């Protein structure tokens, strides 16, 4: 496992800022759901693209961004499930647990599909 301190530092800062922004908006804006937008800030993708662009090439950065859309689809299903379960089950912990299981399987399917698309794009480039 290769650990790059700059990459990890960038992810830490982006992730921390997104959650902190969420808290600030939650205090200032009466609508709690609006603050939730920041809970979905693409912090990990931005950090990964910056690292790939800076130390690699724009093509690598573009591939990472395309690959990230698969993970984000999984995250969308995760949040959708959490919202649905909280409305219908009324249990906080259980809802988050079910949402994480849905996240894992939907991400797996989305990544399988997106990998095929990425390979096709790379073949076209060559």
């Amino acid at each position, binding site marked *: 496992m290769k650990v790059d301190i700059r990459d990890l530092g960038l992810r830490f800062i982006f992730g921390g800022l997104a*959650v902190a922004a969420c808290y600030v908006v939650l205090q200032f804006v009466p609508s709690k759901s609006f603050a939730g937008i920041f809970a979905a800030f693409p912090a990990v993708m931005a950090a990964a693209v910056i690292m790939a662009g800076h130390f690699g090439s724009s093509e690598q950065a573009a591939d990472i961004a395309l690959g990230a859309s698969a993970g984000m689809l999984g995250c969308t299903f995760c949040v959708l499930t959490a919202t649905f379960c909280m409305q219908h089950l009324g249990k*906080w912990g259980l809802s988050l647990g079910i949402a994480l299981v849905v996240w894992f399987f939907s991400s797996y399917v989305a990544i399988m599909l997106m990998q095929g698309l990425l390979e096709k794009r790379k073949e076209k480039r060559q």
Partner: protein
Amino acid sequence: MFDINPFSLFLRFLFGGSAVLASTLIARTFGGRLGGIFAAFPAVYLAAVMGLSLEYKGSELLSVTEQLSKGALVGMAADVCCALAASYFILRYGWKRGLSYALFLWAVLAPLIYLTWFGF
């Protein structure tokens, strides 16, 4: 309602950053397809939801999390568009301008979808 506690703010910053860091390290450990899945772990969302449990309890926690999740759902939809746009813009304009355009698109799209969906 409008007072921001610096300690709470710092705690959330640490919490969000650590969650992203942990998911990255897990992703690197696994590698391959499984690692790819963990690289996109909804760390920021979960850290934000866990942060709510510091202040709210019981049915109030459930209600606030449900509301926050609605906003996050809008943000995630904007995320997918942002990532696809980033991939296109980066190939066209290079990674610096491409990523800036994509994040700008996210910042415009997320509130726009929110207002269209839920109103003011």
